[in-house]
């Protein structure tokens, strides 16, 4: 069974293992075994307490350690086990150890720098780590899905039900309004791209422009990573932890470590998985009771539609389950994972091949990810280590159609607008194709989804290569001093190709005036990063001063992204190339960042390993800053103290309590292209090119956003490691926000990006882990996490503005306004309140009929009397709390793991419901209206909305989700032997099996605009949510 390891621990282990050569040495030998089962523990480190050096146990759990003459204290540590020490006397030659399992994961190390770690128990910032076992409870379309509910402080959203990816991780809330909102992803020391590349669906859907849009159901590129390769993930949250990544770290850093080879006979592992999927919930539509009800919607306005309605509704209209038939693809999904690991002490390898083929519930959609990885660790002599990894992956997705649409192709639009009263899956005898969508206007503003989904191609194809190299040189290694020099280099490149083709004959195709649309979009991305680090560890062997670690180093990073797109409309039949089009649009641009940094870092462990102190500073400069020569500094300070004895005196049930405090700064660099003062191309007229002023005025003073974060917390363990808890309180103040100062349109210019304003986030995170039962046959662990935060815009140096990426006041959006929470949803609502003006012309806020103060909307409201419709606060998109429960019960060979996620509130703009109501077609349309004056519930909602009160579509997004379920069975040896395997495991896995929510539409997590800092609560005709089931067999050789 795989057990957890922690980041970089292997590398450090390598660094700390060189043989001790010392005079007058003697040897001690022994065996390390698992206390419960007696199984040998391999790869455990055995050394003298307080010293830097040690040896590792072999395959049989045996060790042989040289120690000085006399007595000694031996420390044994192994991944997945609690540490153990033994005092041996001067004559003792053997010592065996029986280790207890570390079920609550209190051991291990945590990242503190590019090349340094610290024992978790001495960590002075909050730790969030996820082991391979926790990660792979149930397969997910992208690794973020595997993290959901397992990282306290991180909110993980699924943008839509599209197979193949499209998820977002937000750590401790948004830290920026316009800057990068994604965490920094570092895999084996390489900063990798998590770009969300709009694939180009907008070329057909025209959701925004006619080339590509964030509304294209984008997949962020973390989807290329094979989760089965991951050994552990660590999430650095506070600024004190992320300061080591300087100006790219305000959103947190996700440090991913992949599996490494283990010395010994080569082990092979084969996993074969087969699965299926099903829509979690579909929305149905109105069951029309009469011809008159159909005509009242206006959807059957054309003579042909009218005749269909007349013929079919006699008197009750039939109901066709269009959605049920459309989202019914349960084609099997397959996943094959092959991995092998082995080597000798000096050369070890891990290799894996993975092929995962999944289908989406929407017909003709799916994804296939194929990847291969090779990780090598080589020791050269006793001073040099070389580690390297290489991955090649291919990710192909057929995204299908969904989200916002202005062309009539997004299926939910059609289902929302058109009465489902006739059969649209039959062939029209005249055309030989599926019948036209006669409802919903019946013209070229709509289309038959069954025809469209099979005829339109919307594919994304990514080839990716990532490589990393780590050179370690142990420059000095004595009992008291070690010096390690490390070089880390990495390259991550991919080529993304999004391609769309919409053939001429489709019903909607004439709408934009051109028959047929085809587009190809390519993104070339190349990230390179290098760092060099020197680490000096001084362990004087004193009880009151255990160790001091000094590290210095520097980094150089480049990221180059090139985009090309050719979109052509007006095609000759079946031809898809650019030259055949009559209307051609091209995009050609590139983005490049280069950053340099150097750092100094010091961590001290003292007072019998009770006190941990850490401080450091990093200086960054980069090409996106206005002043490229200026270094911006990011300091950090943190401390923790473990209380052990005072507690044990009070009660023996308390193992220890650690109090920690930290303060740090991290940054978020400016966006690309806002520093230069430029002139724009105005376009062509009569064949002549032109220049016009750029709407955006360059700002040569742009600098990174700076987050100041203080964090206080306590970590404790009780009942001999049976219970552990953690609580953290953080306060973030983000200054120098990147903001667009919107210039007055009458200045003839649009905006300038500036630094200014201040945003703050206060939050609390708590975790409780309990292992109530831990016996040979029955084990039960329960981990619960809770998180909540509140954000405020403290100051704003620009006029209040709606956060980018929304549809406006009629649909609800976040508003960035000083003194207000940026997560609030604003929209049009009616008021009857009167503000007045005093003698000096200031607005005096009046009192409304309800006795409360009138909302101050914007200056000038004083002039408005009576009932007005204004853009105001409706609800908060930020949940009141998020809680997750991860439960694992093992009884003998059976293990059941379940992850339940519970979100309270967190409001959503349900524009999907709005579509159905606008079409007079929602499933509950005919229910009674809650207010007089409306013919039905649907009419009430829609008419209230269209009269300027959008509150009827702002819905609470509370849910309880059974995100993951895994029932596995460790088969008896003889079963395994049938397959000639060493061991065999059979599992049933499920994802999103159950979603309890009063929410009307598919899923309150969904975001029409994909990954976004704000405005990610807009649900508009998405690809529906779905649940997946898998059956898997895991064979070990």
């Amino acid at each position: 069974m795989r057990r957890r390891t922690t980041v970089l621990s292997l590398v450090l282990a390598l660094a700390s293992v060189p043989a001790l050569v010392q005079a007058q040495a003697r040897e001690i030998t022994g065996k390390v075994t698992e206390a419960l089962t007696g199984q040998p523990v391999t790869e455990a480190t055995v050394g003298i307490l307080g010293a830097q050096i040690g040896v590792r146990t072999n395959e049989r759990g045996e060790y042989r350690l040289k120690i000085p003459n006399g007595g000694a204290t031996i420390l044994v540590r192994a991944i997945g086990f609690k540490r153990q020490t033994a005092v041996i006397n001067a004559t003792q030659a053997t010592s065996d150890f029986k280790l207890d399992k570390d079920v609550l994961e209190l051991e291990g190390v945590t990242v503190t720098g590019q090349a340094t770690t610290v024992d978790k128990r001495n960590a002075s910032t909050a730790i969030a780590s996820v082991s391979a076992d926790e990660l792979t409870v149930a397969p997910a379309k992208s690794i973020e899905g595997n993290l959901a509910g397992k990282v306290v402080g991180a909110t993980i959203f699924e943008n839509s039900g599209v197979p193949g990816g499209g998820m977002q991780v937000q750590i401790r809330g948004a830290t920026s309004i316009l800057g990068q909102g994604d965490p920094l992803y570092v895999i084996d020391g390489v900063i990798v791209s998590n770009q969300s590349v709009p694939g180009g669906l907008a070329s057909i859907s025209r959701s925004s422009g006619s080339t590509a849009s964030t509304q294209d159901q984008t997949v962020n590129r973390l989807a290329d990573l094979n989760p089965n390769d991951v050994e552990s993930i660590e999430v650095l949250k506070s600024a004190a932890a992320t300061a080591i990544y300087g100006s790219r770290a305000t959103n947190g850093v996700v440090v991913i470590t992949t599996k490494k080879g283990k010395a010994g006979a080569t082990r092979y592992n084969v996993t074969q998985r087969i699965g299926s999927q099903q829509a979690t919930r579909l929305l149905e539509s109105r069951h029309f009771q009469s011809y008159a009800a159909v005509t009242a919607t206006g959807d059957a306005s054309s003579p042909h539609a009218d005749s269909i309605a007349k013929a079919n509704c006699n008197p009750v209209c039939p109901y066709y389950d269009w959605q049920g038939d459309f989202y019914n693809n349960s084609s099997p999904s397959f996943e094959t994972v092959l991995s092998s690991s082995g080597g000798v002490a000096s050369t070890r390898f891990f290799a894996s091949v993975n092929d995962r083929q999944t289908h989406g519930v929407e017909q003709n959609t799916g994804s296939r990810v194929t990847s291969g990885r090779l990780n090598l660790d080589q020791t050269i002599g006793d001073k040099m280590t070389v580690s390297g990894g290489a991955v090649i992956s291919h990710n192909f997705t057929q995204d299908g159609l969904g989200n916002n649409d202005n062309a009539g192709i997004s299926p939910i639009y059609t289902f929302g607008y058109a009465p489902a009263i006739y059969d649209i899956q039959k062939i029209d005898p005249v055309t030989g194709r599926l019948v036209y969508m006669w409802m919903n206007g019946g013209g070229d503003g709509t289309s038959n989804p069954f025809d469209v989904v099979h005829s339109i191609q919307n594919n994304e194809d990514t080839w990716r290569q990532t490589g990393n190299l780590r050179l370690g040189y142990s420059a000095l290694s004595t009992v008291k001093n070690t010096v390690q020099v490390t070089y880390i280099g990495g390259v991550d490149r991919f080529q993304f190709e999004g391609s769309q083709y919409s053939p001429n004959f489709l019903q909607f195709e004439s709408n934009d005036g051109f028959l047929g649309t085809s587009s190809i979009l390519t993104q070339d991305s190349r990230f390179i990063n290098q760092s060099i680090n020197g680490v000096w560890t001084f362990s004087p062997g004193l009880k009151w001063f255990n160790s001091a670690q000094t590290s210095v180093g520097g980094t150089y990073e480049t990221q180059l992204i090139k985009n090309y797109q050719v979109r052509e409309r007006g095609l000759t039949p079946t031809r898809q190339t650019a030259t055949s089009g009559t209307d051609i649009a091209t995009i050609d641009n590139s983005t490049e960042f280069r950053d340099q940094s150097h750092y100094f870092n010091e961590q001290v462990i003292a007072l019998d390993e009770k006190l941990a102190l850490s401080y450091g500073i990093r200086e960054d400069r980069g090409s996106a800053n206005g002043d490229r020569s200026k270094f911006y500094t990011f300091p950090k300070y943190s401390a923790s103290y473990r209380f052990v004895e005072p507690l044990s005196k009070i009660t023996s049930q308390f193992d220890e309590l650690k109090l920690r405090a930290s303060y740090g700064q991290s940054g978020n660099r400016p966006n690309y292209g806002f520093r230069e003062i430029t002139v724009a191309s105005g376009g062509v007229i009569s064949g002549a090119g032109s220049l016009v002023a750029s709407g955006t005025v360059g700002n040569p003073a742009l600098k990174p956003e700076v987050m100041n974060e203080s964090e206080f917390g306590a970590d404790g363990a009780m009942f001999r490691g049976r219970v552990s808890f953690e609580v953290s309180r953080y306060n973030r103040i983000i200054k120098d926000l990147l903001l667009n100062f919107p210039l007055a349109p009458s200045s003839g210019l649009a905006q300038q990006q500036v630094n200014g304003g201040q945003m703050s986030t206060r939050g609390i995170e708590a975790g409780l882990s309990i292992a109530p039962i831990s016996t040979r046959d029955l084990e039960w662990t329960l981990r619960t996490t809770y998180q909540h935060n509140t954000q405020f815009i403290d100051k704003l140096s620009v006029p209040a503005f709606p956060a980018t990426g929304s549809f406006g006041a009629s649909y609800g959006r976040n508003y960035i306004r000083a003194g207000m929470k940026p997560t609030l949803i604003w929209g049009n609502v009616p008021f009857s309140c009167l503000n007045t003006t005093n003698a000096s012309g200031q607005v005096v806020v009046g009192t409304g009929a309800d006795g409360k103060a009138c909302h101050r909307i914007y200056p000038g409201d004083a002039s408005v009397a009576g009932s007005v419709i204004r853009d105001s606060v409706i609800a908060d998109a930020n949940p009141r709390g998020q809680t997750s429960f991860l439960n694992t019960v093992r009884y003998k060979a059976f293990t059941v793991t379940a992850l339940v996620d519970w979100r309270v509130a967190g409001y959503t703009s349900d524009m999907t419901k709005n579509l159905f109501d606008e079409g007079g077609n929602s499933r509950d349309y005919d229910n009674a209206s809650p207010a007089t004056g409306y013919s039905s519930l649907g009419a009430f909602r829609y008419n209230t909305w269209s009269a300027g009160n959008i509150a009827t579509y702002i819905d609470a997004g509370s849910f309880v989700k059974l995100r993951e379920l895994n029932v596995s069975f460790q088969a008896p040896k003889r079963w395994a032997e049938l397959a000639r395997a060493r061991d065999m495991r059979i599992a049933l896995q499920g994802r999103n099996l159950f979603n309890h929510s009063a929410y009307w539409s598919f899923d309150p997590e969904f975001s029409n605009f994909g990954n976004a800092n704000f405005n990610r609560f807009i649900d508009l005709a998405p690809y529906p949510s779905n649940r997946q089931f898998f059956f898997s067999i895991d064979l070990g050789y």
Partner: protein
Amino acid sequence: MTSTHTQMHKLLGAALLAVLAAGCSQKDIDINNPNVALASAVASDPTALQLLATGLLVDQRGTRAGFIQNTGIFGREAYNYTPQEGRNTTHYLIGINVAGKQELDPTGFAGGLTWGGEYGADRDIYNFKNTIAAAAGLSTAQKAASLGFAQTIEGLMLLEVVQFHDSLGGVTEVKANPFDLSPFVSRDSMYKYVLNTLDAAATNLAGGGSAFPFTLSAGFAGFNTPATFLLFNRAIKAKASANYATAGGGATAWAATLAALSASFLNAAATTRAQFDVGVYDTYAPAPDTPNGLTQATNTNLYAHPSFTTDAQTKADGTPDNRYLAKIRTGLPSRTGPTTGDGPTSGTSTIGFSIWPTTSSSIPIIRNEELILLRAEAKQATGDKAGAIADLNQVRVNSGGLPASTLTTASTDDAVITAILYEKRYSTMMEGNRWIDMRRYGKLNLLPLDISTGANKNFVPKVTPISQAECLVRAKLGATFLGPNGLNDCAP
């Protein structure tokens, strides 16, 4: 111990040196942005003058289609039936309820019209003027010609602004520092600024020698030398004066209209289509040029108001007005705006325009046919009713194919104005006049409302509100930048 420390320090020192070597060359991060042209590079490029001049034409063209479509919708010439986005229809026809009054929503689809694009052009004109002033290679005449060109475009842009915002006024000048905002001025000041600018342009063009130091676009064929461009300048002046005349300019402005017309390319004796169509146009073409966005070839959502059919007068043979036949296509699929629980939000239509058959069809900026009718207006206003009737008949008979009007000098002023407005409606269909003319003559109430009662009651806005963006910035920048109503929300 000592030796260990020394060794270690050496190693750390070496590591640091390596870091410096690897990471500290600033040259490495001094990269160019290949997506843009640097302003500093353009300033020193001799080919930039042509590019900047073309930029003004692109700016001007960029405002045109929107101006025409929006005036078309407000003036009940056209509908925008975008089925996927009903607000394209409703926000124009219904607006929002502000204190019991129907208004356009300054934050909505019909908010902020005819503002940013025009001032964007103004910004480029400002930069262009600076470039001209600093251009060492230009002669005095070339500088004058260039300035006259820029000022004419400036007058045209600000005329559009005041036509849309009318009583709200506007802003006349852009300043070097975009944070330094010019104050709002009244409608009267706006018109005076426009007229003065056009006159200054005329003076400069008159002294502008024989050629511009740059080439104009194809739509300016026949008007692409300083002398011929001046004819265009006078035509715009005539239109601006006529607008000012009905907005407080009075008799002086009418007189100025007549004077400008006589200095323009007016050919009052025009009888053929070609003669009526002489004028200046915005030209369009497929990418990389800009396609005509109103054309029936690609725009399936732009419909014509059915009142064009009902109101078209008939020729002697009983068939409709030639202009109706030429510009309106019938028998389109029936379309309407979105239907709410309160019923339809707009009328239905089965007719569209055939004015712009392809994506390469031009859109006139001003044509001779409009100038003749402008003269009719001016003559009527200055007491020459006979002349007015003659001018309108010239168009009515030759362009419309209709029998001459039965009006006589004994007819009422209103009858003559109504007749001129009929001719203007069909002669300059979708050329940006109907809504503005009806407001100028106080006849907005005569425009048909498709839905005249209930929650979806349609209305005709008098003006379009100042964009909310403008108001918010002015509010942020402080009380010195008050809107036209003395408040910094600049709501109408």
